[in-house]
């Protein structure tokens, strides 16, 4: 499993870091994000890469889990 923490970063940093994490083609990836834009964009990116995505709210943050 790969974990990416992009809390507090504005676009496009969350997408860049997530994309980089996907280079090793992990079976499971967890992205921690703090704003709505990052949540939406990361979700779409993971779906495009073939992951099944679940998003849970963790306090004010989002935990985006992708599994293949």
């Amino acid at each position, binding site marked *: 499993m790969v974990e990416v923490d992009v809390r507090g970063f*504005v*676009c*496009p940093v969350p997408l*860049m870091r997530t994309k980089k994490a996907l280079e090793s083609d992990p079976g499971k990836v967890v992205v921690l994000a703090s*704003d*709505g834009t990052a949540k939406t964009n990361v979700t779409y990116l993971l779906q495009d890469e073939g992951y099944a995505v679940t998003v849970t709210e963790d306090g*004010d943050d989002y935990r985006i889990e992708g599994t293949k």
Partner: protein
Amino acid sequence: MGKKRVLGPSAWMLGATGLVIGVFAAFLVKQGNPGNMGLCIACFIRDITSFFGGEAMKMNAFAYVRPEIVGIMLGATVGAFAFREFKARGSSGAVYRFVLGFIFMVSALIFLGCPVRAWLRLGGGDLNAAVGIAGLVVGIAVGTVFLKRGYIVGRAKKLTKPAGLVMPVIAVVLLALALVTFYNGAAPAGFATVAKGAKKTAEGAVFTADKVIAPPGASMVDGAIVGADGEVVSPAESVSVAAGIPGGSRAPLYLALVGGLAIGLAAQRSRFCSVGGVRDAILIKRYDLLVGVAGLVIGVAVMNIVFGQFNLGFDGQPAAHTNFLGNFLPMILVGLTAVFMGGCPLRQVVMASEGDLDAVAAVLGMMVGAVASHALTLASTGAGPASGAWVAMGVMAVVTLGIGFLRTQKA
């Protein structure tokens, strides 16, 4: 699933948002906004700032609280609250965002438009905008090089919720000022505004369709403007060719406000960005945001043709100049500062309305930049760039690159 798509699921929503912006923009021009200026974040923030800056800052010709901007702010705030995305946040990067916002604004006013208006101008047939967009793409490309090397403007921390309400409160205050001015027919004491449809003669007389505003006591007699002392101030031939004052060109307040609300809400939900499309295409080979821009250009072009506002060419374009470098160079800075700020000015306004105090700093930087542009005569006119603009661009390029290197940390 499993197969990579060129366009993600958000592409359609972004395209629809672009269409909404494009169609509204053409409609607002039809309803009285300046040509190819149904929406311009830079120009309209400048106009709002002029309401406060007035004559002292040489801004009184633009003074008008543009309801489009107020609507975008409120629409984005409503969207953020409704979908539980309103989050107060901020970082030390706010200082940089302020400076970048300032440089963005001064540069945009040399080109005569923000990226949103650049695309709208293109959809109106203004080929000078194509030159500007070429510069924009260069600026964005330079920005992506910094991003790849680890540029980060700041890492935001959570703040208590009331702190995030700065922009929404500013929006409500602006709305109140706009409504008071609208119903009183004049700006409250200490503020400036241009009367709707106001024109100015070569001799300096100001008038609207139904009255003479300046000089005081003057009146319209047989098409000429005659002073209180009976002397002719402006002869009829001068009155008939008088030019409109920019701040007086505007769509009805409520139409502009509703248009702004719709655009703000759609932009908040879709994350539409007029710079991010090119950035993402270069940086991560994703084209969804670009679909939004395509929707905008198609929407405004089609409606401009329908309304008879489409005019292909370089010359005679509204609120534009034809100086090649004066269009190309400032837009490099616009693209670069927008990437460094984390999105185009429309995004900054939307993020500020979602509780992002760094984005608020960027918007305030734009306002101060607007004051500097006019007080120091850096903004272009239809005749071309001001002489000071070239030096200003050189200095701003150095500062922008300096911020780029300063904020690039090895990953």
